[in-house]
């Protein structure tokens, strides 16, 4: 019973320590990781931001949306729209413009879909998401159904220093020096900013109202809260943050395709939220990390497995082919197992562990005091 509440149970210090260690790992990772993995790290953090933004709806407002990728896709495509030629535009206007477009779309889509509830809301957001997908897929706006390249990286001139290229480099710079991994750190800073923003938001008067709406919407209305307005505000904020993720994605990959806005992407974000746990702000970061790690591990495991079974003559398969063909199968089984074992996700496990360590320490202290 108590575990289901969001009250401070005294274990917060341990969770905070865990988060600080995690932050340290993220901050130091480029010093040891290969370029491939640093780029993967950037990708994970982009998805973490996206999943955190969806969690504001799913975990804190009680709105399960299956169209959240729309805002991701719109902001990503904005980067393409804003650099039609080969001249790079400045981050200082392209970022607010891209995020603003995503927010505007969220305002329109939210205003219409929030007139429905539950499964209907899920279906309506899904439909709107697909509309955005087809806008990029089937109309001249999107360029090509297969996706389009972004021709120039936005320039990032801060404090008089012009960073020539925002994007992480593919190779180590000649002479063994490491690439600056600018985008990795910009994305890390964005992820921290989004976390801090959500922490402030959820402690605010507004944050408490949306949590109340998640628990009992009817009662909140009877108490005098215009529930629709609060839900719409939450939906737009989530859309804006999802737009930030989309912008970073486009800058990182320099390639955008309609699938970024599609329902498959929306489902994947939802999966990250569920996997990481909905009750906390940091849960979706764990979810994004876990999903990516799971994918990598599944591929490696299949490759090794198939290589081994080839060696003893059981199968005759290309291990690499098998890995890319079947990793989803392994991933799916593991996800089902995790959801069954950890209904509150990975962050639920962390919270329980912290509470357990805390109570263990307290009772040990109590015994020690009794002994003396």
């Amino acid at each position, binding site marked *: 019973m108590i575990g289901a509440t969001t009250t401070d149970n005294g274990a917060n210090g341990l969770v905070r320590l865990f988060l600080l260690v995690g932050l340290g790992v993220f901050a130091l990772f480029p010093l040891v990781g290969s370029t491939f993995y640093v780029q993967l790290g950037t990708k994970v953090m982009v998805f973490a931001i996206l999943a955190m933004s969806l969690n504001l709806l799913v975990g804190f407002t009680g709105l399960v949306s299956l169209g959240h990728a729309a805002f991701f896709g719109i902001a990503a495509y904005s980067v393409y729209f804003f650099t039609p030629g080969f001249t790079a535009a400045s981050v200082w206007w392209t970022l607010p413009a891209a995020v603003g477009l995503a927010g505007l779309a969220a305002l329109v889509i939210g205003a219409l879909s929030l007139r429905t509830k539950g499964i209907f809301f899920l279906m309506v957001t899904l439909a709107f998401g697909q509309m955005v997908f087809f806008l990029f897929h089937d109309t001249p706006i999107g360029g090509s159904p297969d996706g389009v390249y972004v021709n120039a990286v936005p320039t990032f001139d801060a404090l008089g220093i012009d960073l020539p290229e925002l994007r992480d480099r593919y190779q180590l710079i000649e002479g063994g020096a490491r690439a600056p991994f600018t985008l990795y750190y910009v994305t890390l800073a964005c992820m921290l900013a989004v976390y801090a923003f959500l922490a402030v938001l959820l*402690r605010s008067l507004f944050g*408490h109202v949306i949590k109340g709406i998640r628990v009992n919407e009817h009662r909140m209305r009877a108490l005098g809260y*215009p529930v629709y307005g609060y839900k719409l505000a939450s939906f737009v904020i989530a859309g804006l943050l999802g737009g930030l993720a989309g912008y970073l994605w486009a800058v990182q990959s320099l390639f955008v395709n309609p699938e970024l806005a599609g329902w498959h992407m929306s489902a994947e974000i939802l999966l990250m939220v569920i996997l990481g746990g909905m009750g906390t702000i940091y849960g979706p970061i764990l979810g994004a990390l876990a999903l990516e790690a799971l994918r990598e591990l599944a591929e490696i495991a299949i490759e090794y497995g198939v290589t081994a079974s080839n060696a003893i003559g059981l199968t005759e398969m290309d291990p690499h082919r098998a890995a890319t063909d079947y990793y989803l199968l392994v991933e799916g089984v593991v996800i089902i197992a995790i959801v069954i074992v950890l209904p509150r996700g990975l962050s639920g496990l962390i919270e329980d562990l912290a509470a357990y360590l805390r109570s263990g320490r307290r009772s040990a202290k109590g015994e020690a005091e009794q002994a003396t």
Partner: protein
Amino acid sequence: MSETLLRTDTLSKSFGGLRAVSDVSLEFPVGLLHAVIGPNGAGKTTLINMLSGDLKPSSGAIYLNGENIAGLRADQVSKKGVGRSYQKTNILAEMTALENVRLAAQSRVGGGLGLITAVKRRGDLIDRAHAALERVGLRAADDRPASALSHGEQRQLEIAMTLATEPNVLLLDEPLAGMGPEETERMVALLRSLVAGHAVVLVEHDMDVVFSVADRLTVMVNGAVLESGSPQAIRASAVVREAYLGEDEDDA
């Protein structure tokens, strides 16, 4: 004293072919506890739901301070000073008792969505929540999750939430449902204490309680008002006796 705060004029509600409430015209002045009684299906809760904005009336008017509020949404009606409790306990079960009442008090904070203002900076809301909990006798339950409270305590919590919205009109839908004798006694005392300064509308099944606390009684049958008047008048009414109270109430 008997300024009419809330008044209905030929208020009606139909669900398809069923006329759940028909042509109800009643007055609810400040400082009076007005109980609405009647058999199941008489339309009492439907009436309350219309008064609180949970249901849209099919026809007729609801005047609050002379302004017709019929058709306003529940949150708008609440903002105008009409607070209600529900027949089926309606609380924020996962949250603490204090947070339930604090959110109720917060609903009166004007201006903006409060995106930045931290809850901790509004100690006044916590003070008001404490005062409301104190009033219903739940001050000790502060930090307990609402779901862990006893049934009677949850009913008290619901009244505290309603009070924290600082209403002029109190709509109480069976606040005593499922309560033990001791809890009932405490709740009755609370109800009496609420009459000063509020127009209280009480729907209740417990006839002993109704006749002991009500200043005015309205008997509804099949969606219509059968009789309305003082408890003595209702007791003496032959129509009411025939339709509702039954023969065995003779010696009461």
